[in-house]
C-alpha cells in the first residue's frame, strides 16, 4: 500500500482510506520509537529539507527527529539564514533547494496556500507543516493517531474544538479529518472567533462552552494568540479565560473518560487550567510522542521507499 500522491498539503484533499493508511503506517513506526535503537534505514540516502518561515520548535524538531529516525539526511532552512530576506521568492528559493536534489520539502509558512503553491512548482514532495490559517495536516493526523491509540472509534465520537477557530490551521485540519471519519464536531468560541459559514463544514457551532462540553468524548483546546487582544476579537484575557478556559469544573461536564488535547504550546491558566493540563484526562504529551511516529509514516509514504 502506498499514498498515490506526491505531496501532503491538506487533510481536505485526503480520502478516509488515505488517512487510515497513514495512521496504520505510523503504528509500526511508533513501535520503532519505543526501541533502544530508534532508527530504521527506510530513507537512507534521501534528503529532507525543513523549510520553516515561522518560528517553530516543536513541529520542526518533530519532523527532524522523524526524518533522522528514518536515516534521511536533514537540512534546516529558516528565513533568517536563507535568502528570503534578499527578496527571492518562495518558489525560487524552493527550486534552488530542489536543484540540490532534496527529495522532500517540509514547509511551514505564514501564508495560506503556500504549500500548495510550492507543490505545484517543484518536483520534490512537499509536506505542509502549517500554512497560515489554512491547514496543519500532520497535527490533525497525530491527533487522530492519539485518539485511535486510546481505543476510540471515530464514528460517532463527540469532539469539541474550543477557541479561536477563525485563525487556526489546527482547527481546520481537525474539522476536515474528524468529519471525514464520521465524528461529531462541536466548534466552541466567541462569535468573533468563528469564521463565516463554519456550519457548512459539517460542524455545530456553540458560543456557550458549558453547553458544548456536555457529553463530549474529546476536548481539543486551541492556543489563544494573546496578541490578538488588540484586534477586537476578545476584550481581555481574563474574560476569555472565564468564558472559554477549560477548568476542572468544566471538564466534569464531559464524559467521565473524556480526553483533553492541545496542540501546544499551552498558555497555562488562560485556555487551560494547570490541573487540567496535568490531569489523567490530558493526552497532551502523548500527542507530542505520536507526532514523531506519524511524521515518520508520512515521510515514509511520500518517499516512495515502500
Amino acid at each position, binding site marked *: 500500500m502506498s499514498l498515490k500522491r506526491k505531496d501532503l498539503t491538506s487533510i481536505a484533499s485526503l480520502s478516509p482510506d488515505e488517512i487510515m493508511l497513514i495512521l496504520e503506517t505510523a503504528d509500526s513506526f511508533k513501535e520503532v520509537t519505543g526501541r533502544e535503537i530508534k532508527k530504521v534505514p527506510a530513507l537512507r540516502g534521501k534528503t529532507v529539507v525543513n523549510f520553516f518561515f515561522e518560528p517553530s520548535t516543536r513541529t520542526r524538531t518533530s519532523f527532524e527527529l522523524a526524518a533522522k529516525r528514518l536515516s534521511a539526511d536533514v537540512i534546516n532552512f529558516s528565513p533568517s539564514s536563507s535568502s528570503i530576506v534578499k527578496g527571492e*521568492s518562495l518558489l525560487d528559493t524552493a527550486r534552488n533547494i530542489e536543484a540540490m536534489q532534496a527529495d522532500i520539502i517540509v514547509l511551514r509558512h505564514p501564508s*495560506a*496556500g503556500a504549500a500548495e503553491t510550492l507543490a505545484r512548482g517543484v518536483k520534490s514532495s512537499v509536506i505542509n507543516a502549517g500554512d497560515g*490559517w489554512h491547514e496543519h495536516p500532520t497535527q490533525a493526523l497525530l491527533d487522530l493517531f492519539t485518539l485511535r491509540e486510546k481505543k476510540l472509534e471515530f464514528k460517532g465520537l463527540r469532539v469539541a474544538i474550543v477557541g479561536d477557530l477563525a485563525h487556526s490551521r489546527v482547527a481546520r485540519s481537525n474539522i476536515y479529518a474528524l468529519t471525514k471519519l464520521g465524528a461529531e464536531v462541536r466548534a466552541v468560541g466567541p462569535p468573533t472567533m468563528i469564521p*463565516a*459559514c463554519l456550519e*457548512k463544514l459539517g460542524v455545530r457551532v456553540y458560543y456557550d462552552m458549558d453547553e458544548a462540553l456536555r457529553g463530549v468524548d474529546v476536548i481539543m483546546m486551541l492556543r489563544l494568540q494573546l496578541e490578538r487582544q488588540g484586534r477586537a476579537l476578545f476584550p481581555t484575557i481574563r474574560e476569555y479565560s472565564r468564558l472559554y478556559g477549560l477548568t476542572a469544573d468544566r471538564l466534569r461536564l464531559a464524559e467521565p473518560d473524556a480526553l483533553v488535547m492541545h496542540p501546544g504550546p499551552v498558555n497555562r491558566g488562560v485556555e487551560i487550567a494547570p490541573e487540567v493540563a496535568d490531569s489523567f484526562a490530558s493526552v497532551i504529551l502523548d500527542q507530542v510522542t505520536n507526532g514523531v511516529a506519524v511524521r515518520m509514516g508520512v515521510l515514509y509514504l511520500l518517499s516512495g521507499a515502500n
Partner: protein
Amino acid sequence: MAHSLHHSILIRGGHVIDPGRMNGPAEVLIENGKIVAVGHNLAVPSRGQDASLRTIDATGQLVLPGFVDLHVHLREPGFEYKETIQTGTASAVAGGFTSVCCMPNTNPVNDNQAITEFILDQARAAGNAHVFPVGAVTKGSEGKELAEIGDLRRAGCVAISDDGRPVMNSLVMRRAMEYALAFDLPVIDHCEDLHLSEGGCMNEGLVSTQLGLQGIPAAAEDVMVARNLALAELTGARLHLAHVSTAGSVRMVREAKARGIRVTAEACPHHFSLTEEAVRDFNTLAKMNPPLRTWQDIQAIKEGLRDGTIDVIATDHAPHATQDKQREFAEAPFGIVGLETALPLTLALVEEGVLSLEAAVAKLTTAPAQTFSLTKGTLAPGADADVVVVDAQRQWEVDPSRFRSKSTNTPFAGWKVKGLATTTIVAGNVVYELA
C-alpha cells in the same frame, strides 16, 4: 504612427448598432476623422483616382461605436514594467475600446496638472485609443487634503477618484463632492471600508473559511456605498460607483436612483462571470478588489444591468507582472487585465438573455460616455470616427500570450468565448485589425 491614414473609410455590409439611434444593416462613411453618414448606398465623394478611400467589408459583422472604458489602470508613470500607456491602449483597441479613462494611482499619483499633461502626451504619442485621465480626489490620494481639482479639470481630467485608496474620511468626501460640483465633475468612489477589509484578500464566506484566508465581507463595500449615497444626496454631486460587486450595493443604488439621487454605477465582467470558487486553489489570478463574490451577487448584478440600476460595464483593467502574481495568495496584488476579454464576456450576457444586444452595446458605449460627459460612444454624423467592427459569432480561446497588454494576469485563460473585435478605428484611423 504605425497605422495607415485614410481620408475616407466606407464600412459596408455590416449590421450597425448605435444605441438609441440605429439598429440594422447600414453603411458607415468616415471622412477626415469624423462620421459623415450612416445609411444605405452612401455617396462616396469622388476624388479623381480616389486613392484615399478604403472600403471595409463588414458582411456578417456588427459595426458599433468604439467602446468606452471608464475604469482602467495604465500604470504609467511609475509602473511601466506592468503596463505603459502605449501597451495599455494597444490592448484597448484590440478589445474594441477606443476611449479609456485611466485611474490616478500611478507613481506619482495623478493629482496635478503636470501628470495629467504627461499622460495625455504619452497617449497622443501612442496613437491608439483616446485616453481620458481621472484625477485624484486628494493630494497623493492620501485622503486628507483636496487635490487641485479645478486644475485637473482644466488639464483634461474627466472625473476624480482615489481609486484603490478610498477616501475614508467622510468629511473629506463631502467636501470633494461639493467642490467638484463647481466643475460638474463626477466623483468616483471605490467603495471599501478599509477597517472592515483590513488584511482581507478574498470574499468572506465559505471558501475563505475553507482556505483559511482572511475575508473581505460584502458589508465592507455596502457600508461605503450607503455613506456615499447619503453624501451624494446631501451635496447633489454626481456620484459614480466603481466596480459594484455586491447584491447590497445593487439594492441601494436602485433605491437611490428611484429617489432621484444623481448616481451612476459600473460593473466589471469578472464580477458577473466568476464567483469566489475561482479562488479555490489559491489562484492569484482570481484575486481582485472588490473580490469575486457569490452566485447570489452575480444574479443581483445581472438584474441591476438588466433594469438599468448598473449603467455601465467597465473593465478595471489592472495589469500586474508575472512575478507580482506568482506570490503567496495573501501577498499577491489585487487585479486582473480586462480590456481584451470584456467584449465576449459582455456578449455572453446577451446569449444568456440578460441584456438585448443593443442594451449590451449601450453599456459599453453610450452609457459610459454619458456618465462622464464624453462626446464619445456614438456614430452620429459629426462625431469622432471611433468605430469597432465585431464578429459576434467568432469563437476563440483566450490565450494571454497573445494579449497586446504587457501583462497576462487573467483568470479567463483557456476559456472558449464568442465575439471578437476585427477592426478598430479611432478618429478615422484604423488602429487595429485582426490578423
